[in-house]
């Protein structure tokens, strides 16, 4: 039996090409990072290997912490490929565009982000394409290439700022979208208590991160408010 059988390209991202298929008969996706001709080869190699290693290491760490991340089944650093479990879910961007979702949706997105942050991980690329919504309405964060271990308030605040900007730009008709996300974000701490001690220390509380986000919003050049 062939290990990987590719079926079709799902997405041509800026990071990688994502192909659906099967791995030993199980539904899988293959993520392939191609060399970028516009980037100096030294920089390109450095970024590609750093981002791949990050994605693998942090996915495994988050799985241990109980986050709903895809299982990683095969890795080829030289080829720049990762084969992982195919997660059942629809990108948030499509769910929001379909207008068919319940009012807990964005709360759940906030909770999923906070779960990462509680475990000292910044996602690094929180666009509405990188958040999947499963049939239970829960949010699963994918695409961890830009993820980092983080302990400083600023990093977590910037992580939220990226999503804030995208929600405002791509989904301007949804009122208070970010407020809903932040409500869920804070709610998770209320449910679970203080964030656990991570290897490098104690991640900041949800409330402090939200305060920092407000500062970042005021600080960026012309688009604070």
């Amino acid at each position, binding site marked *: 039996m062939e290990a990987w059988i590719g079926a079709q390209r799902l997405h041509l991202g800026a990071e990688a090409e994502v192909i659906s298929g099967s791995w030993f008969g199980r539904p899988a996706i293959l993520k392939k990072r191609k060399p970028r001709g516009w980037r100096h080869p030294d920089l390109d190699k450095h970024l590609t290997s750093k981002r791949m290693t990050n994605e693998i290491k942090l996915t495994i760490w988050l799985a241990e912490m109980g986050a709903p991340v895809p299982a990683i089944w095969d890795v080829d650093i030289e080829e720049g490929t990762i084969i992982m479990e195919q997660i059942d879910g629809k990108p948030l961007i499509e769910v929001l565009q379909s207008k068919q979702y319940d009012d807990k949706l964005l709360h759940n997105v906030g909770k999923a982000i906070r779960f990462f942050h509680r475990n000292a991980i910044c996602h690094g690329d929180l666009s509405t394409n990188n958040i999947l919504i499963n049939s239970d309405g829960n949010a699963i964060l994918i695409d961890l290439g830009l993820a980092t271990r983080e302990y400083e308030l600023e990093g977590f605040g910037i992580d939220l700022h990226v999503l804030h900007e995208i929600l405002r730009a*791509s989904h301007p008709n949804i009122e208070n979208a970010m407020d809903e996300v932040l409500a869920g974000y804070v709610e998770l701490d209320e449910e679970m208590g203080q964030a656990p001690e991570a290897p490098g220390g104690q991640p900041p509380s949800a409330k402090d991160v939200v305060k920092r986000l407000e500062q970042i919003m005021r600080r960026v050049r012309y688009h604070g408010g």
Partner: protein
Amino acid sequence: MREGWILGIESTAHTFSFGLVDADGKPRPSVSDTIRPTEGGIHPREAADHHVELSSQLLRKLLDDNSIKASDLAAVSFSQGPGMGACLRTGAAAARTIAEHLDIPLIGVNHCVAHIEIGREQCGCDDPILLYVSGGNTQVIARLDGRYRVLGETLDIGIGNMLDKFARKHGIPFPGGPVIEKKALEWVSKNPNPSLKGLELPYAVHGMDLAFSGLMSAANKLVSEGEPFEAVCWSIQEHAFAASIEVAERALAHTGKNEILLGGGVACNQRLRDMSEIMCNERGASSHCPPRMYCIDNGTMIARLGWLELISGRTTSLTHSGIDQEMRTDQTPISWP
């Protein structure tokens, strides 16, 4: 409404510029002057004085160059924001005076949107992602739901500001970007296929947001540690431009659009243009860049956007003609195709 020329006045920062479009919206080159401080950065007050002093002579030259009289003007548009307050006020004051004196409509427009619209006019692209890279601004902008919306931007300083500040620290007067480009080329011609080893700099991409101040500090450190200045200039470009192009590519992937439009003064840089071209070729998209005179700040783009607003029936009353230093790109409703 009188048929005729639309005058555009640009004064958001260091450049004071008058430009024209005809009754069909066709652009004519601007007449501009840029303050070049002998030392330090741009002081808004000094820039404003510069603008006021040159105002009438620049306008005179524009009218003479195009063999038209003031009475041939049908409307006047000006940059209402965003920008430096003192500078914006000089352009707004000139525009109000001309509009009142000639009894023609006044149109206040958004500077960033003007960059997009002149780019679309010049390049014939339809629905691009704008990578807007200038001294004050670094933004990735897309038209979504009837507005131009900012998908990502710099979290600290503009890319052009980073280049100018780095240059200034090493004795190169404003504008530093073109000198850095020249030095980078010298490094490449002396060292074909140069390596980035030992010249690594921070690469700050956060989703579609960017940051440049860490890169600038690290570049200064490399120079102080004795790395050749040309090599550091080259490395700055390789890192900062790659990060910008990556963010532009993320915006393409996010929106499903397939055109990139470059704008702003830093878009004059050939290396940035080349990177954009390669990125677009690799993903089956197309890269567009207006001529250099329409990448930098110019009055013609203000005239062009004024014309679009005018044919959509929007003008600005005197009471609403106040400047807005923090005017947002998505404040302008886009009613034209």
